[in-house]
């Protein structure tokens, strides 16, 4: 027999711990609320008084998106397809349901039924992101930047959060389906069937198949509708309500399945405490401490067959996608400046930010080891800067390979060179911010889905730094590209030559910061 009072107690304190207290009882959270409110009031005043002189970014981008055959419906279909693919991944993956260790130890040893815990957790999962709204400054700014409309920006923020809730609910629901129903194969066949049928149908009709809409369209549409200028705000609000209704429906099914859960279906996941390097083979290597650290943290991790193979595959996919897009939709007559200078760096920057957060989170697990054994933190800083810069260059290379293929312009690949010093600067600034912020509070946290993320205000700062650097570099590089290939080549050579002295200079500063500040775990 379920006890509502226990469920509500669990929900309330889970929400307090994860979202309410970090915002209301921490100064960074309070500052964020003030900042977000101020930005919205200023923008709302500007909007109501028609102070915007230029059209929104989204309006400027529309012709280009249309040239790619994209509109709000097709973009929703693509997002729906991604969610279908994620469902298949969850069904194939062999993991148990992870829960943070502190919940495992302190909550599950209380007289709480596992179903009660799952229900409270699902409730918190759905409502958590809403309570956390003010922390999503980046999303709010993105929404404003795209639409110039504070109301749409708020709706977009809710829409973005619905995706977060959807991913967590899909993860929970289909992990339960896989472990508890014995119908794993049926669901795999069903979702793969939907995906295959929609691809075949898309090829036949030369467009995006509506079959993709089957399971997740309401959720995907709730994300896209607020940004679509052709959709009224009232309609966008309605689609948001419908999207959240689907989330609640999925949550109810998950709650039903949670009845069959056993204690050993839940696995505690520890993060920092006592962690050392995992999963690697023991190797004996002789050299100076600096060389060993650099090799372990950078060259050994990056330049291995797995990573290089992965990069080649992703580049091949990017090139094929670029060629297919140009064959399918035709090459756009001219490069849309907004698209190049803002949208691509922003999206790449966001992807990179998420990747960096994972990388940094992974390294922080054994940070104590460096602090104890490394005589000097500069080699650690050097290796981490190199690694983040390499990811930056890799992301740029993949993005530019696809663009080169799409525009049939191989010279675009040269732009990658600009990301070398840019990546060094971005990596160094990221590490500086993290060293400083991590000395004040714990900045890496683990989501219920087992993904490591950088927390609130720190995340926003990292995001802004990466996006600004990406935008500046792309802006400069594409400007030179528009002048001539020779100008681009000269700029690329200068970029490459500046990267090394920059790296040497910044690694010392970052190393000193890492030595000076104590990281809190």
């Amino acid at each position, binding site marked *: 027999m379920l*006890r509502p*009072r*226990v469920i509500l*107690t*669990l929900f309330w*304190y889970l929400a*307090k*711990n*994860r979202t309410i*207290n*970090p915002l209301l*009882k*921490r100064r960074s959270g309070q500052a964020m609320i003030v900042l977000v409110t101020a930005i919205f009031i200023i923008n709302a005043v500007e909007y109501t008084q028609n102070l915007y002189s230029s059209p929104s970014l989204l309006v400027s981008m529309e012709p280009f998106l249309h040239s790619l055959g994209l509109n709000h419906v097709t973009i929703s279909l693509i997002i729906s397809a991604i969610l279908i693919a994620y469902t298949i991944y969850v069904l194939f993956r062999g993991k148990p349901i992870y829960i943070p*260790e*502190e*919940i*495992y*130890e*302190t*909550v*599950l*040893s*209380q*007289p*709480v*039924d*596992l179903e009660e815990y799952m229900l409270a957790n699902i409730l918190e999962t759905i409502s958590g992101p809403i309570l956390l709204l003010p922390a999503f400054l980046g999303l709010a700014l993105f929404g404003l930047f795209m639409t110039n409309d504070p109301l749409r920006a708020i709706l977009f923020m809710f829409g973005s959060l619905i995706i977060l809730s959807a991913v967590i609910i899909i993860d929970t629901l289909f992990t339960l389906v896989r472990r508890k129903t014995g119908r794993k194969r049926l669901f795999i066949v069903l979702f793969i069937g939907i995906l295959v049928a929609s691809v075949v149908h898309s090829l036949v009709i030369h467009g995006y198949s509506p079959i993709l809409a089957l399971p997740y369209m309401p959720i995907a549409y709730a994300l896209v509708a607020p940004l679509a200028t052709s959709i009224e705000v009232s309609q966008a609000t309605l689609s948001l309500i419908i999207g959240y209704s689907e989330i609640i429906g999925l949550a109810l099914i998950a709650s039903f399945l949670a009845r069959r859960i*056993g*204690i*050993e279906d839940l696995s505690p996941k520890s993060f920092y*405490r006592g962690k050392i390097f995992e999963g690697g083979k023991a190797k004996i290597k002789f050299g100076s401490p600096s060389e060993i650290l650099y090799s372990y943290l950078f060259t050994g991790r990056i330049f291995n067959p797995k990573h290089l193979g992965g990069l080649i595959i992703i580049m091949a996919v990017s090139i094929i996608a670029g060629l297919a897009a140009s064959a399918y939709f035709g090459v756009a007559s001219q490069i849309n400046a907004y698209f190049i200078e803002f949208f691509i760096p922003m999206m790449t920057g966001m992807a990179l930010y998420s990747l960096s957060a994972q990388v940094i989170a992974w390294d922080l697990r054994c940070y104590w080891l460096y602090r104890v054994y490394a005589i000097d933190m500069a080699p650690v800083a050097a290796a981490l800067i190199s690694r983040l810069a390499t990811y930056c260059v890799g992301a740029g290379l993949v993005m530019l390979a696809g663009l080169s293929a799409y525009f049939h312009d191989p010279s675009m690949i040269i732009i990658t060179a600009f990301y070398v010093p840019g990546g060094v600067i971005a990596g160094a600034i990221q590490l500086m911010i993290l060293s400083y912020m991590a000395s004040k*509070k*714990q900045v890496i946290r683990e989501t219920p889905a087992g993904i490591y993320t950088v927390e609130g205000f720190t995340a926003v700062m990292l995001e802004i730094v990466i996006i600004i650097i990406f935008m500046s570099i792309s802006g400069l590089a594409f400007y030179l590209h528009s002048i001539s290939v020779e100008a681009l080549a000269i700029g690329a050579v200068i970029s490459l030559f500046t990267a090394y002295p920059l790296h040497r200079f910044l690694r010392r500063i970052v190393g000193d910061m890492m030595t000076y500040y104590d990281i809190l775990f």
Partner: protein
Amino acid sequence: MENYVLELIDLRKTYPGGVKALNGLTIRVKPGEIYGLIGPNGAGKTTTLKIIAGLLKPDHGVVRICGKSPVKDRVEALKNISYVPENPLVFKNLTVTEFLKFVVGLRSMKWENVKDHVDYLLEGFNLTDKKNKLLIELSRGMIQKVLVTAALIVKPRLLVMDEPMAGMDPEAQYFFKQTVSDLVEKEGVTALISSHLLDMVEKFCTRVGIISKGKLVAEGRIDEIKKMAGREESLEKVFLEIVRG
């Protein structure tokens, strides 16, 4: 038939990967005992305590807490115990008071009914001025005291504690022992304590079980165990002799 607060009969547990943690462990704890569970690292102490706390399921054997099984009748069985884990992991963004209210709420108890006891325990552990602090702001030792407070306020029938005094200062250790003794004598609480602090176990526990390789290798009052080993030395030396065979 004798009444036991805790019965563990022929428990076996093998972790994925083949590590055999428990290999036929049998322990019975009577009401009003302070039972010390000692053993070398990897002997199966924490696994045993986690099985009692409903965090792990045994592969084989019977677990009964006041006659209830935490496997089959989880909620009813766990109502009788309080568990202090080995690692002091708590909800870091809750204040001390919020965390204690949370635990009280999960047991469907009223805060007003335990508030005086909470104040007494917080004062005894020197935490009164920290009660509105977030747990993230406290040291490991302080968090340990909060966890012990949370276990003690609910006055369970069985206290299950894994290294409860780890990180505690001497003053808090003294207060802890006094409080547990009081609860045992006045409230009829029973305690099962796993610890490596053999001096503490020798002076504090009324009965001791020595566990090695997942099995109970010796059990009894301290004097009985010493007699069993044939020497009148400290528990530490007796323990080493028994464990080393």
